[in-house]
């Protein structure tokens, strides 16, 4: 078929790309370090009915720029629409939808559990298996720090819960791309 002929585009061959990815997404967002930026982002999510699963904010190597890492469920939200709306915020510099295979993601959690003398050995054993650290001990409790993927933290939670979970604190995931980039 010759270039320039209209036959090359048939209406029946046109498709709209799927909107829902069906998986968890980690968005790494670079924003200007200015007052109110987080409120703008949080407001955008609530206004548009998007749910943030986790949110982590921290500095970058450039003091004028902060990084917001947030995770959300691509099964309920069209990620494309979320990122396009975020891009409209003037203080948002860059958004990266991290590809799961090419990303290392980590989260930290602290668990305070009841730790009577007879169960301490088992708790310590769990901690070792999960390469977790015991960071505080009192007469009745132990506090354990776990770092890893969200899955690992959830697995640890399942193991430790039967001992009496008093409190759990999680940071939300942060992520970095693998390899040279």
């Amino acid at each position, binding site marked *: 078929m010759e270039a320039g002929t*209209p036959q090359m585009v048939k209406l029946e061959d046109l498709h*709209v790309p799927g909107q829902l990815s069906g998986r968890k997404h980690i968005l790494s967002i670079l924003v200007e370090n200015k007052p109110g930026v987080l409120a703008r982002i949080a407001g955008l999510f609530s206004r548009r009915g998007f749910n943030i699963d986790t949110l982590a904010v921290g500095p970058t190597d450039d003091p004028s720029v902060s990084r917001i890492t947030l995770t959300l469920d691509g099964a309920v939200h069209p990620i494309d629409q979320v990122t396009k709306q975020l891009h409209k915020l*003037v203080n948002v510099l860059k958004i990266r939808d991290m590809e799961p295979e090419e990303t290392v993601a980590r989260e930290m959690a602290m668990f305070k559990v009841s730790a009577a003398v007879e169960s301490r050995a088992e708790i310590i054993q769990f901690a070792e298996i999960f390469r977790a650290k015991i960071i505080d001990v009192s007469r009745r409790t132990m506090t354990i720090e776990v770092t890893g993927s969200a899955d690992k933290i959830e697995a640890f939670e399942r193991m430790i819960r039967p001992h009496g979970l008093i409190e759990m604190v999680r940071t939300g995931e942060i992520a970095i791309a693998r390899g040279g980039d």
Partner: protein
Amino acid sequence: MESLKAEGVENIFGIPGGANLPTYDALVDAGFRHIQVRHEQGGGHAAEGYAKASGRVGVAFATSGPGATNLVTAIADAMMDSVPTVFITGQVRTELIGTDGFQEADILGATLPFVKHSFQVTDPRQIPEYVHEAFHVASTGRPGPVLLDIPQDLSRADIEYATRTEPVELPGYKPMSKGNIKQVRIAAKAIANAKRPILYTGGGVVNANASEELRELAAADRFPITSTLMGLGAYPASGESWLGMLGMHGTVTANWAMDNADLIVAIGARFDDRITGKLSEFAPHAKVIHIDIDPAEISKNIGAHIPIVGDAKLVLPELTREYRALQTDTTRLDAWWKQLREWQQQHPLRYEPGVDGEIKPQFMIEAMHRATRGEAIVTSDVGQHQMWAAQYYGFEQPRHWINSGGLGTMGFGLPAAVGAKVACPDDDVVCLAGDGSLIMNCQELATCVAEDIPVKVFLMNNGYMGMVRQWQELFWDRRYSSVEMGASPDWVKLAEAFGATGMRCENADELEGTMVRALEADGPVLLDVRVAQEENCYPMIPPGQAARDMVEAPKAVS
């Protein structure tokens, strides 16, 4: 003030107060025309009317606290209709911020959902930079409102203004302008392959000043064309490809054309719910080309098969050129046009004429068209009169139809007319008002008189909040609840009390003549037109239904 001048500002709408005293003091010598409105909401809408009529950035000032919160409706309105506006509010002194000080309101926080961007000054040296950034953000890309909040102490500071030479650079703000040419080529070919195409245009075409470019595209072949409420005038209503407005109160032909089209070319339009009706049944046979400057609009409501992100003014000429190069056989559209003409013939806009001099609202719009030769800049409030004007006035030019589409703000018309008249003093500016709406901002008649802004208010007075009444009649078993205007003011006396001219017309035969007299009279005029009270606006797609379920006016039994 110097930064505002550098942005080419000539007119400002506003009201002074404690927190913006320093700004108003500087205004005395600055050489702007300041229009002292009577309510900040009016100032905000006037800035919008100014922007919509002229295409330039509208500017409104307000003081802190209640002054600023009174602006909120106008800011939200400007956001929904993408109106380039800059709102500058006073704020309490820096040391009072966060202490619930007198006339303190967190206007930055309150308006976050409604602004394209906003700034709060924390150092007086930021002011010139922020002013330039505000104008840049408000007027480029998809236009919108920008708020600049200046604490009182910082606006007093004496700072040097250095004339800005380099363009504004914001690292996180890079609006697209040129469309991707490959996508444009694919679009041209898709159009060439369409047997039932339709151009669906919106306010984006008007904002982009791309009316000429749209007319060129429409002329490249016999493409049927329809428009949203906001896009009226971009393509002339007298043009032969014009199908009328689409949507809830659009024409049958425009809506059925969308329903039957095999290709929709959406240009600067956003598939709003008032256009689509029931989303899942919207245009079931159509593929979609979506041209918009805002990437977030593409595939937001309706999936786009061929997205083109860009400025309509740049994209449309490319599309026209690419399409013309294909030299497509225009006879493929014959069957489509035969169908469309049939619908137009069988389902025109129609109403039962009034008898015994009764003024039907549709007749009033037709009389207004004749009295103004169809050339006036018409602003409107929100409701039935707005829809009838959209249906019956027949706009020929862009920026001649100024109304609140997205937010649907009653009381928009009069202050918007103030702004439009300031922007275009040589044009007839008519505010088509509803009696429910006009009273919401009627204080701006005082502005018209005091500032010598001769707008003509044509009041479609039916004694009801008509659109709400219509819904109560049709969908709530005619149980009227708080829609009668009851003891409305005597509008003629009200106009006179403000120092304007008041007129009244109750007879259809005298209407056009009275309108002409109102237009020819000096100064602002309020013409109270008594129309049929319980006329309904048809055709109508009932809420949540599809275009094919459109309801037409019941035929009179003879």
